[in-house]
């Protein structure tokens, strides 16, 4: 298997709607930005992977082929990858496979979503079609409702509080104030998050990401190509994917899948995953960590960009990824560990702030969630973080971590049906 590197990326501004640009033009903007960053030309790209979620939103089949021709990539290889909310992360991994297999020297992962062609409530209906349409959707198909039930069970099982969920919202919206690509940066208090309109108990409007339009592109290369174009290529050392049953009702109540630093006795009475945890997230993390030789993620990761479509799912994901034990996600956020070390949040912590920053970019909650672009956006922000080029690309270096060596990206679909986790580290 060949070593795989990421050398450049581009992201468009995420916004509620971009009626002045078609999806092809959005992708081209991100693509040209990525090429320009390393002085590459279209001829240097061997093929692509198109990453977008919904034919319903686009009302166009084969959108990937239309992006391929618009970018001038025909007749090179290209195909579409789709996996709900994890589409972007899976697209990133599909591009990784093109390089790892030796089929391509340089592959462009092209992600986008256009979600404003229908109103928000119709959009929620489209998204709910990503639940079982015989047994789940007709009961009242609504994704926030599904995640809310998982949050309620997490609260029941581990005594997690809605205020702890709200701290995630405060963190991610605040981080995004220094990210010019983000859709909804903002300064909030826990009280403001809790008193925002309730969408599905316990999740308020500020606990939930919004629909968005935008594109993100990642350029992945083999070693020779990487070093001939980039001074600071980032190496992809772990690529993990996990799955779980589509219907939450079908999730088993068995034993925890352990990470190397955990013991069976840590979870003597926990029935797993039930609906309180994402087994797919644990499976994906475990596979990625094994490849990257990570024994204890808290000690060995410098930051994580994870899929915070809901504040509750960020807390659940700390546990799946092994940053803390199952059940400790709520207290973990109170320690201050997942916050940025230098940003002022107006919160009090029980421990050191910024031990392992999670969603330094602001995540989905504040950046927006144009589904097919999101996982690739995470890879681009992780690349810039590792390269130390956040200041250059954001024109503001407030979010640049000091000397990060290794980070993880985590992309998640449909109440945890598909999860993709990839580990990126300094390659030079």
């Amino acid at each position, binding site marked *: 298997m060949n070593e795989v590197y990421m050398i450049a990326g581009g992201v468009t501004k995420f916004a509620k709607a971009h*009626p002045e640009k078609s999806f092809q033009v959005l992708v081209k903007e991100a693509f040209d930005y990525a090429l320009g960053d390393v002085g590459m030309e279209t001829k240097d790209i061997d093929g692509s992977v198109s990453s977008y979620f919904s034919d319903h939103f686009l*009302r166009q089949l084969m959108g990937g082929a239309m992006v391929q021709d618009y970018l001038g990539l025909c007749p090179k290889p290209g195909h579409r990858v789709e996996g709900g909310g994890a589409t972007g992360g899976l697209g990133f991994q599909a591009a990784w496979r093109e390089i790892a297999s030796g089929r391509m020297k340089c592959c462009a992962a092209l992600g986008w979503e256009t979600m404003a062609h229908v109103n928000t409530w119709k959009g929620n*209906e489209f998204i709910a079609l990503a639940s079982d349409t*015989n047994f789940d959707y007709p009961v*009242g*198909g*609504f994704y926030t409702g599904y995640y809310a039930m998982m*949050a*309620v069970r997490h609260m029941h099982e581990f005594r997690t509080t809605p205020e702890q969920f709200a701290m995630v919202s405060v963190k991610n919206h605040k981080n995004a104030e220094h990210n010019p690509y983000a859709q909804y940066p903002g300064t909030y208090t826990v009280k403001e998050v809790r008193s925002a309109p309730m969408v599905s108990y316990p999740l308020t409007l500020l606990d939930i990401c919004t629909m968005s339009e935008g594109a993100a592109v990642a350029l992945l290369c083999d070693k020779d190509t990487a070093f001939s174009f980039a001074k600071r290529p980032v190496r992809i050392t772990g690529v993990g994917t996990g799955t779980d049953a589509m219907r939450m009702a079908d999730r*088993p109540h068995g034993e925890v899948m352990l990470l190397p630093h955990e013991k069976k006795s840590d979870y003597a009475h926990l029935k797993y995953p039930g609906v309180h945890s994402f087994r797919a997230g644990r499976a994906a993390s475990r596979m990625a960590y094994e490849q990257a030789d990570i024994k204890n993620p808290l000690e060995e990761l410098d930051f994580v960009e994870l899929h915070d479509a809901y504040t509750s799912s960020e807390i659940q994901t700390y546990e799946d990824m092994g940053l803390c034990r199952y059940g400790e996600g709520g207290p973990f956020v109170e320690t201050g560990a997942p916050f940025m070390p230098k940003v002022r949040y107006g919160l009090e912590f029980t421990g050191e702030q910024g031990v392992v920053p999670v969603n330094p970019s602001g995540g989905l909650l504040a950046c927006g969630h144009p589904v097919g672009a999101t996982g690739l956006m995470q890879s681009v922000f992780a690349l810039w973080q590792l390269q130390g080029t956040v200041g250059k690309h954001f024109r503001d270096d407030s979010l640049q971590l000091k000397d990060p060596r290794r980070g993880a990206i985590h992309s998640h679909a449909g109440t945890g049906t598909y999860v993709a986790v990839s580990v990126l580290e300094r390659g030079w």
Partner: protein
Amino acid sequence: MSKKIQKKAGKSPPRRPTSRNRTETLRPALEKALRRMPKAKPAKRAQGVGTVSAGNLRGKVRLPETEDGNSAFRIPFPKDLAHLDGMSPLVIRWHYEMEYLHSYAQDSPFFAGLANGRLLGTRCIHCRYTFATPKGHCMRCGEKTRWIELPLKGKVHSWTTCYFGSQEFLKETPFNLVLVEFEGADTLLLSRLVGVGQDGIAVGMEVKAQFRRNAKLLASDVYFVPA
């Protein structure tokens, strides 16, 4: 494909033993068939139907003007084409509607059960894993399952109250979603809980099934109320 990969892939499959190669065999037959192809004909002059000469027909043939769809009158257009790039985008309404013939296939008995006031699950004939939301084959061991009747009483495993929803259900808000656990079943059932507000629901609360009198043949034909 790069040469590197082909080399790594190992030996190519053995060639089929033939006395002459396929190209040589095929060529004479192909030549014969090519000679039979119709000759190219010279282009005809346009005569009404077919290629239309706009000049001749102007004022005689028109698309009918209809009142449906988008009706636009006097869309602004600059004299100077250099100004076109700054034009604000045109956004149109585009209706889309469809009707499916959707089969419940092997799950049909579940819906027939609801229409008759019965709640059905399935149980694996091999490992006895029991699904409160039916599955035709066992997720654990792959064997076929058989139908069983579920108790009409259960407990709330988790719940939420939705104050917003997707378009189809927006008019029904606020409504409660519950995952119900049953004695003797390994998995849960997603349903609605009615007759109680957010403050009256808790994990572990006992609930009982009720059925719509006029079945719609949807999973929502069953719902739960506090027991």
